[in-house]
């Protein structure tokens, strides 16, 4: 028997997908469309307290309500899924917004993705979230990447995040 790395369900050897949560149980070759397998996923790596150090060339999201800074790093893919975790959820987002009352603010479990393209352009894509994503007050259509600029205001449901790009200082506001 082997155990599903996502939900812990036991499966027979040779099984390729978890019958409980549907997660793949084998190493997938990288998919061309930029979709990811759970194996490559990293758990949310952003405890809010440890966020005072900014390194150069990173994207920082400032939670408007609390002033907490979320630093997007630790992934070589140049992609971060923003969302929240719920019990029994198979696919966890890269950035778990649960500490910021994501549920009450209407953040979907896989809400939006921030990506950095090869030429360094940052974009945000709504992942078909229930309550939508707004960029500077305008609702963006799902699944279409929108360019991000310094100081942009992103609303995931009702959760407001301020975008800081290319921060160089050790402790910017």
């Amino acid at each position: 028997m082997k155990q599903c790395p996502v939900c812990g369900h036991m499966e027979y050897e040779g099984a390729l997908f978890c019958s409980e949560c549907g997660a793949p149980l084998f190493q997938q070759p990288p998919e061309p469309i930029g979709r990811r397998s759970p194996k490559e996923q990293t758990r949310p790596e952003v405890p809010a307290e440890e966020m005072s150090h900014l390194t150069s060339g990173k994207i920082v999201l400032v939670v408007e309500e609390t002033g907490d800074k979320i630093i997007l790093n630790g992934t070589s893919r140049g992609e971060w899924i923003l969302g929240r975790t719920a019990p029994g959820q198979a696919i966890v987002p890269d950035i778990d917004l649960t500490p910021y009352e994501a549920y009450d603010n209407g953040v979907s479990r896989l809400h939006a993705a921030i990506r950095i393209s090869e030429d360094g352009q940052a974009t945000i894509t709504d992942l078909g979230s229930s309550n939508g994503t707004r960029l500077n007050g305008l609702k963006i259509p799902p699944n279409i990447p929108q360019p991000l600029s310094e100081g942009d205001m992103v609303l995931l449901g009702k959760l407001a995040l301020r975008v800081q790009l290319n921060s160089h200082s050790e402790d910017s506001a």
Partner: protein
Amino acid sequence: MSVQDYYTLLGISPEATQEEIKRAYFALARRYHPDVNPSQNANEIFLRIQEAYAVLSDPQKRLLYDQRLAEQAQHTALLKIKTTLSQSHLARLEEPQILYALLEISPTHDKQNDKRPPLNVCLVLDRSTSMKGERLNALKRAAALLVEELRGDDVFSVVAFDDRAEVIVPAGRGLDKNLILQKINQIHPQGGTEIYRGLLEAYRQVGRFYNPNSLNSIILLTDGHTYGDEQKCERLARQAARQNIVIHGVGLGAKWNDAFMDKIAGITGGASMYIRSSQDISRLLEEQFHKVGKLFAPKAELLFSLGRGVKLQYAFRLTPEPMPLRMESPTMLGGVPREGTPLRVIFEFLIPPIPKNAENFIVLTGAINAHIPAASKKVQIPWSIGLQIGKEAGPVPPEIADALTKITMYRMQEQAKREIAAGNIDKATRRLENLATRLLQVGEPRLAAVVQEEAHRLKRSNSLSPEGEKEIKFGTRALILPAEFERDE
């Protein structure tokens, strides 16, 4: 298959059990033994019987023989088969393991078979009161479009039913299209839904011009449940299946019985299709009609026996029409299209602990039967699966990974429905939530939203909405189709 092969020699089928092989061998050996039958000819036959038995009675030799036979058959048969396994070897394990097999059946290229055989199609239309208004009107328009496409040698008929059946257009060739349209236009909604009545009359109409070398099909359209006559429908479907008459089900709206229609269609090698709203009727009915015309072999059937301790846990047709299949022999695989995507079926086997010292393991032995109208020929191709034991399993072939990604989601909704039926609402809710997450993951936000909404509804009210249930079932099915097929959005 060659007349010389061992199975033909012993007068048994390629899926014969060891017991049957032994019995056939002893019966023949008694007749041709040199002590009993002194002729020179008998002696030769006796030697060949010995040879055949030596091979077929040894499962490993038989497997190799079957594989060789299958290769030979490829050259002569009109169909070719391809098998892909999830692993190239079985692991030497003292616990059970799972093996997936993807079977593909397609025509061997042969230009002379490119012409479509004549159709013999009966359209069975539900005219019960629930069809009143836009539904029936849309259906009439759709039927009118089909009539335009008939060829001179096609046979066409129309039956309407409520709790009675009425032949609107009796089966015939070269019918006056205007007259057909006039008659279709006169269908009035009335009464309840008794599918058996309609099906039986359709079966009679197709039977009047029945020809094994035509594409004999019944297309059944309904928007409701039938009550009390399900068993009779099943018996009729089995009878139709024996004569290569394929039943296709088309369900309108949320209230028809999809499980029943899947069953009836499945028995004959057909499938059922879901039409959400009246404006899709025309397009989807035409699609269904074209599918019938595109068949090279209307139905391929698999006869099989499983290796010792092997369990077939799931069988699912991926293309041309995705649908779960029966897991006992014989199982109807479905139609083989003349061109484009082949008939593809995936199997999930549970393999028992591997015996010590075993070098090979036989999973399945069997044969695929099909009738090819264009060539007026029956085809039988042996199909067996056997693997060596103990080496590296190798990477998972992408076509298996891709198929299972999608089937896993279909099975999750099946499982959730079983859990609801068993009163296990919490578990079903969690499973639907997991399914929604998976759907998002593979880039299906629209369907994910439907699933999420139904999960909420389930939590609140302990049941799914009939619309949601169908959306999820047929939505996850539609994901399985390759991109060149149009999905009904």
